[in-house]
């Protein structure tokens, strides 16, 4: 038996799946055309305070560019940025898109924390069988809609708080080819250095510009005397910056007072393209 194969049959493909996917990408590009900078906040390691730093960066940026800053919480399974910025729902649905929540300093925020019931994990309606096969695709779809379906408006800066790990930044880059770059968060330890280095290498290999390293928990700030005493052994921030040829843009001592971090992160805005 002989018969023609896909490309030998001239007629159109009814579903046009490739065209639909292309339209999805175009929707993201169109939406972000009014955003001057899209910057990923990443770390290869969990527990380094990445989201806390991202929230601080957003507030510092909002003081530089009032009403011009947004945050996408891409840590879909463990969202914290909305809470850190005191952003709450419900989210208004407008014809052209979903209106982001407003947090501290008028930062615009979108996060699964605004969509999930309190105390409930991220779960999907789809069949539970073999869920691991399509979980990543579903999560990529959510991130795509967070970027493309939200009425971000004109922004100077849109921060994307990525989940811990090395692969999230490449996924983001696939959705946002014009990604401005990435800021990297570490703590001083050697363990963090090794883990964060992998994420930085993944970003560099994907052609993503590394804008700088922020070392969090870089000593402990004494509220009484103002002194900064060591908290962890290590010098990961400086070592990573040197290894990748990027600046160490901030060292943040452990200090529960968020305003101190916001003030310390103000200078990061100076290194952004």
């Amino acid at each position, binding site marked *: 038996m002989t018969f023609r194969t896909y490309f030998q049959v001239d007629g159109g493909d*009814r579903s*046009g799946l490739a065209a639909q996917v292309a339209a999805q990408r175009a929707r993201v590009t169109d939406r972000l055309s009014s955003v001057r900078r899209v910057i990923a906040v990443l770390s290869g390691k969990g527990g380094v305070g990445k989201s806390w730093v991202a929230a601080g960066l957003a507030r510092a940026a909002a003081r530089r560019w009032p009403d011009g800053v947004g945050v996408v919480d891409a840590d879909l399974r463990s969202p914290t940025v909305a809470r850190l910025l005191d952003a709450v729902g419900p989210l208004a649905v407008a014809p052209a898109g979903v209106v982001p929540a407003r947090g501290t300093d008028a930062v615009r925020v979108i996060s699964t924390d605004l969509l*999930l019931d309190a105390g409930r994990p991220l779960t999907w309606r789809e069949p539970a069988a073999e869920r691991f096969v399509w979980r990543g695709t579903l999560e990529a779809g959510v991130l795509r809609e967070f970027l493309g379906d939200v009425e971000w408006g004109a922004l100077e800066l849109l921060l994307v708080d990525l989940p811990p790990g090395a692969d999230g930044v490449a996924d983001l880059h696939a959705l946002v080819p014009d990604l401005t770059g990435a800021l990297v968060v570490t703590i001083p330890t050697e363990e963090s250095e090794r883990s964060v280095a992998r994420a930085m290498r993944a970003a560099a290999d994907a052609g993503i510009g590394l804008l700088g390293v922020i070392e969090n928990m870089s000593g402990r700030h004494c509220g009484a005397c103002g002194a900064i005493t060591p908290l962890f052994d290590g010098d990961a921030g400086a070592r990573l910056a040197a290894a990748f040829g990027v600046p160490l843009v901030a060292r943040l001592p452990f200090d529960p007072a968020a305003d101190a971090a916001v003030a310390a992160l103000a200078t990061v805005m100076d290194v952004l393209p």
Partner: protein
Amino acid sequence: MKFLCIDCDAQMAFEERRQPGDGTFAASFRCPRCGRAVAMLANPMETQLVGALGVQIGGRELDQAPFEQVRRTMEGRDDAFVEPPAEARAGRPRWSPAAQARLERVPRFVRGMVMKIYGEYAGERGIEEITPEIMDRARVDLGLEGM
């Protein structure tokens, strides 16, 4: 995906799709020359693998609604969204009591989007009142499994 009638060496034409609500997908195609029809039957995993891309199998009939994939796939809280006020829906097709009762059974997380989709479907076809029968027809035409 294309279907070829080997006997006629002709591409078969799409006729209908169905998503019966059990996670599966079906589409029928007919040969324009000999009239032979075939049905493509996809199991839940095959259906989900494609659906996870946020695309419409068989082609997209309506514009993508905001957060369409989020609302169709995520388990979300009832009060996550505030929909446009009723006056913004002026001129839209009205909902029969039976259709409204059926709509009430849709989780609130997705209800606003479902309402918008059915409204646009009816509006584009000059349908003045949405009834359960119209909803059934739209489900078939648009591939709205479980809505």
